[in-house]
Each structure stands twice: as structure tokens, then as C-alpha cells.
């Protein structure tokens, strides 16, 4: 049979394809519906948080930081409850990372504050002596891309039924609604309102002035995202 295949490239190629393809079918397909359901208490990202998530991606923070707490005592002691599949239901793409040059960030919102991030991103080694993390000074001047974050909200809402402007169940039995703007202007206004809350806890005068004049530097969006990781 093999000699015959080696003289018939078409059937050879078909044979190879079938051999390599079915592992994927068996491993990936059965899990799809099951894993994409959110756990109770998981809410979609707000416009500003999503813009911050895109800042995180733009700078490949996931090259050094994981967002996956494994079920070991040493990890739950250090980072909090181990990660659950449904907590990632609104993560497109997933940001588990594959290398922990720095610590895990899946629940960083539980134990770091706006103020801490502000100082740390400006000069990590000043906050954590010995840190090898570079300074991310450009995030204090570059502006966050709110329009694209809004387009992303619309996309996941329209194509994947991510529940914006709809009640989402919370752990205490109540519900909460994550708002999405009806227009670009409305989305920007929502993001700005959220940014204003965050800069109340910040010290950098340039960032405060920028937000006061209606602009949102990347750092503000990034902190909104960091604070949402709980």
C-alpha cells in the first residue's frame, strides 16, 4: 500500500491530511460549547477596560506575564483562587501566556491599586528593587484607542452575542449591566467617565490634565484593565 501511495501523490497527500487532521477534530471540537459559557460573576469588558487590554496586547505583556493560576497551594497562596474556564469566556484572544518572567496577573486587581500601577509602570525597579521589567514611559503620553475598543465591543456583541446593555448575573444574586455606547461619541463619553474615576487616584499631573481635557492616555486604560482582573 505504501509503495502505491508513494507513486500517487494525490492519494498520498489525502492520506497525510486525514492522518494529521483527526487528532484536532477529536480533541478540540467536543469542548467548544462547554468551555465558552461564562461563570456567574464574569462580566464583559467595558470600553475603557477593553482599550486597556489592547494596550496590554500591543506591548506583548503576555510575553512575560501569565494569566493562569494553576491549582497548586504555592500558586493559590501567591495569586489567589485557581483560574476557572468560564472566567475567560469574554477573553478574545486568551492571554494565558507561556512564560512567567514576571508574576501571574490573573487576579492582580485584588491586591494592586491604581496608585501602585502608576508608580510601577513608570519605573518598575523603583517600586520593586531588583525588578528587570523595563519602564513603560510612553504609555503616559500615547493615547488609548477608544474607537477600536468600541468596534471590538460591537463585533463581539454582534457576532458572538457577548451580553452588553443586558443584565448579567452576579455572585450575590443581583445583576449588573455593562454599558456599550450607541455611537462612537457615546462610547468615548462612557470611557472618559470611567477614566475620570481612575485618575482621581493618580498623581501624574500631565495624565490628569489630559483626562480633564477629554483625552485618555494609554496608562489610564491599562490600569482600568488591571483593576478589572479579579
Amino acid at each position, binding site marked *: 500500500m505504501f509503495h502505491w501511495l508513494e*507513486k500517487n*501523490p494525490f492519494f*498520498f*497527500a489525502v492520506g497525510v491530511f486525514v*492522518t*494529521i*487532521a483527526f*487528532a*484536532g477534530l477529536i*480533541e*478540540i471540537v467536543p*469542548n*467548544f460549547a*462547554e*468551555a*465558552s459559557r461564562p461563570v456567574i460573576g464574569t462580566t464583559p469588558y467595558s470600553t475603557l477596560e477593553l482599550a486597556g487590554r*489592547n494596550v496590554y*496586547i*500591543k*506591548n*506583548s505583556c503576555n*510575553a512575560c506575564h501569565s494569566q*493562569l493560576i*494553576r491549582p*497548586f*497551594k*504555592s500558586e493559590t*497562596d501567591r495569586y489567589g483562587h485557581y483560574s*476557572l*474556564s*468560564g472566567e*475567560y469566556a469574554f*477573553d*478574545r484572544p*486568551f492571554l494565558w*501566556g*507561556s*512564560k512567567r518572567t*514576571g*508574576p501571574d496577573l490573573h487576579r492582580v486587581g485584588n491586591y494592586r491599586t491604581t496608585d501602585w500601577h502608576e508608580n510601577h509602570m513608570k519605573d518598575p525597579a523603583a517600586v520593586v*528593587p531588583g*525588578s*528587570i*521589567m*523595563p*519602564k*513603560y*514611559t*510612553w504609555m503616559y503620553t500615547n493615547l488609548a*484607542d477608544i*474607537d*477600536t*475598543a*468600541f*468596534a*471590538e465591543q460591537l*463585533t463581539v456583541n454582534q457576532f458572538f452575542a457577548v451580553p452588553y446593555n443586558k443584565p448579567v448575573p452576579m455572585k450575590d444574586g443581583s445583576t449588573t449591566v455593562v454599558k456599550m455606547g*450607541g455611537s*462612537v461619541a457615546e*462610547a468615548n463619553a462612557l470611557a472618559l467617565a470611567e477614566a475620570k474615576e481612575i485618575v482621581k487616584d493618580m498623581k501624574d499631573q500631565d495624565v490628569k490634565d489630559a483626562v480633564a481635557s477629554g483625552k485618555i492616555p494609554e496608562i489610564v486604560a491599562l490600569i482600568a484593565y488591571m483593576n478589572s482582573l479579579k
Partner: protein
Amino acid sequence: MENRPLGYDYTVAKMFMLTTIVLGIVGMLIGVILAFELAFPSINTILGSGLAEYTNFSRLRPLHTDAVIFGFTISGVFATWYYVGQRVLKVNMAESPLLMFLGKLQFWLYVVTVAAVVVSLLAGVTTSKEYAEFEWPIDLAIVVVWVLFGVNMFGLIGMRREKSLYISVWYYIATFLGIAMLYLFNNMEVPTMLATSAAGETGIGSWYHSVSMYAGTNDALVQWWYGHNAVAFGFTVPIVAMIYYFLPKESGQAIYSYKLSLLSFWGLMFVYLWAGGHHLLFSTVPDWMQTMGSIFSIVLILPSWGSAINMLLTMKGEWQQVAASPLIKFMVLGSTFYMFSTLEGPIQAIKSVNAIAHFTDWIVGHVHDGVLGWVGFMIMAALYHMAPRVFKREIYSKSLMASQFWIQTLGVVLYFTSMWIAGITQGMMWRAHDEFGNLAYSFIDTVTVLHPYYAIRGVGGLLYLIGFLMFAYNIYKTMTAGKPLEKEPANASPMGA
């Protein structure tokens, strides 16, 4: 007419040889910079704080991985295909002006795509999925390049005079099919410009931005099914294709066993795809998938070692060639590193080992003993074998080749030993508890302890880069100043010219 010896046209092979070398230098240079950035963080702002955004570790990291995978390695795959393909199929590319045109088109489109990748990654335009960072416009260009490669491959196969496909061709076909399938499925994404707001606005925000079709755990599953098998079909399958051709040709020895090659080929095809789950051990994907990933990783030793043993036994009775020829040294050490790396990988895929190894530098070390020792050595050996036949000149300097071999071997050894120690040290420190059950170390303790190993790794990488520059110089001098050859260098290969 049929009795006339066949000539071959290496125009396209030469073009891809050039990109193999240029992108190899770029990718490895960035790698060395990254290594030293981890050891000495002030290098992050080496071009001043104004440009820090573009020289900083996290921005450069995807550029390094993509430059060595899709630049250096894939160029090497293309270059060797356009050389090996004609020879084992007994066709001349010049016989078909159409294939020649498509080959050149593939090259130029590839160059344009590479340029777009460099600019976009530096600007921070990325999807964040490892080795699949490109946004959809670049993905589309990559698909076209890949289809052109496939058309050329099957075009040449269709024109072949040798009816039976040689082992290398099996592996090249598998490379084409495997990468095509994986790349398409992992990069399924929806461009955000398609969305419409309630107010009727469309095309909001950046036009090139997209969201993944998969969310969370599913996205991770598809990504590592891709990520692991991009390694399989980029770093293993085509490199095995190369060694099955170049080792017998260079040594003049016949392949040790056809049956072993058959077993390892179909075995590799069947087993490799299952093993992706070992990247997700202790994550939120279902347990049975993690276990499957673990088990199939162990099974994977069989076909991997099958190929490697077949290569080493091909040298049976001719071991003096290893001492005599630096080119054979590259290939024999390459096979040995392949065996080493395909044993190390399965060990790391065992759950209890993975609990320590995952997220640490041991994984980085594992990748690099494979790519530096196996992929890099084999591609350089292939180009060294091709150069005299393509440029019709003798290799410029054999002693330079020999020194390069030892410098790079030292580099690889420094690289993986330092990363083993770094990885296991960090993995053990993360999990250490004191006698009261509290964590023994804060995270930063586990970072500062790595400094010496990061420095050693940087030196290892630098040695490898120096060796690669020697290789580039040697090939350049062969092209321009090597002694012209009247006819092809002879070898006693039973496979004929």
C-alpha cells in the same frame, strides 16, 4: 534527448538562500539583544528613552520568534525545496515558465510580507497569539505565499520523471498540508471594521484590528494545537526532509532503513497533532485532553527517534567522515540534538515535571536546544551542501566552517545548560514553603537569582550569532571568491546525480 544529463535551475533556490541568511542574522541578533535585556535591563533603552517603545523586550520578543520561524526557517525550507525538489523528482524548473514565474512571485510576495510583519510588530500591531501575531491583512498575504508554494510543489510533482516520491518529498508535502491546516484554523478572526454601531456608523477604529473567533479556553486550545504543531511542521517535518536528502548525498551513504523511515513518517504524522495539550497541563482545559497531551508526547519519542536513529545508522561504517568533514559534523550533531530535544520534550510533558517546568526558562532552553542544535545546524549544513552546486564554486574555507561548528556548539551548550539551571531553580523556588506553610520566597527573589544564568545564556546566544555571521561570510566568499568548479563535486551516492 532523454539521455542528456538533466540540468537544474536554481534561480528561486538562490533567492531564498539569501533570505535564509539575512533573516537568520536579523532574528538571531534580536534574540541576543533580548537575552542581554533580561540580564541587564538598561539595554531596554539602548537607543535612548525616546525610542524605548521600539527597543523594549516585550515589543521585540515576537519579532525574534517570528523572524527565526517564518524568516530563517521557512526561507530555509523554501530554498531547500527549490533545490531538492527538482533533483529527486528529476525535473528542471526551467521546463515550466509558469512554475518559474510563480516561484519568483512567491519570493517577492514573501519579501513584501516580511517587511509588513517587521513594521507592524514594531508598531505593536499584534493579535498576541504566539507565532500567529499577525493581523488579518498579513495573514491573507501569508496564505497566498503558502498557496504559491503548494502550487509549485504539486506542479513539480506533476511534471516529475521519477515516479516514486523520495522520502524528503513526503515530508515536504506534509509540511505544506500541516502548516496550511494549522495556520488557517488558528487565525480565524473577525475584522472589527465589519461591525455597525446603533447609530449606523461602520468602519470604526483601526481597519486592521480583529478579534479571535474563539474565546478563552477554546482559544487556548486552538492556539496550542497550532503552536505545538507549528513546531512540528516548521521545525521538525521539513528539517527531517532536509536531512533525508543531504546526509546521504554528502556522505555517499544509502539511507539505513526504508522501513524505519516509513514507520517514523506515518508515526510522526499520526502522533504529533495529539501532543499539543502538553502546553496546557493544569490549565482549565478538560483533564482528559491534558492526559492525552501527556501520553502522546511520550509516544512521540518513537517516531522522532526512528528518524534520528535512521540518520545516525546511515553513517554506519563511515564514522571517519564525522572527523574529516565539518559538514557531516553539523548533520550528525544535528540529529543528536534532535534525539536529545525529543527526549527532553516528553520529559517536560509528564505532569509532575511540567508542574515545575511550565512558565520557566527550562522551556525556553528546550526550544533552543532544538532550534539551535537541530534546525539551525541542519539548515546551515543544507546551504553549505547546496552552495558549491548552485554557485559552481568550491566552499571558500573549510577551516572557517570547522571553527564555526565548535563556536556554535559551545554556544548551544552554554544556552541550554544555563536555562536548565535557571528554570529548575525558579520552578523550585516558586513552590517552596517554609516550616509554617508560608511561601518561602517573594516573586522578586526568584527573578534576581537568575541574573548569572541570564548572562551566561546571553553569551551562549552571542557565540551562536558569531558562528552564523561566519557562515554568512563563508557563503558570501564562496559566491564571489570560491575556486570555480568544472563539474559538480563528486559523491558516491547510490541515488545518482
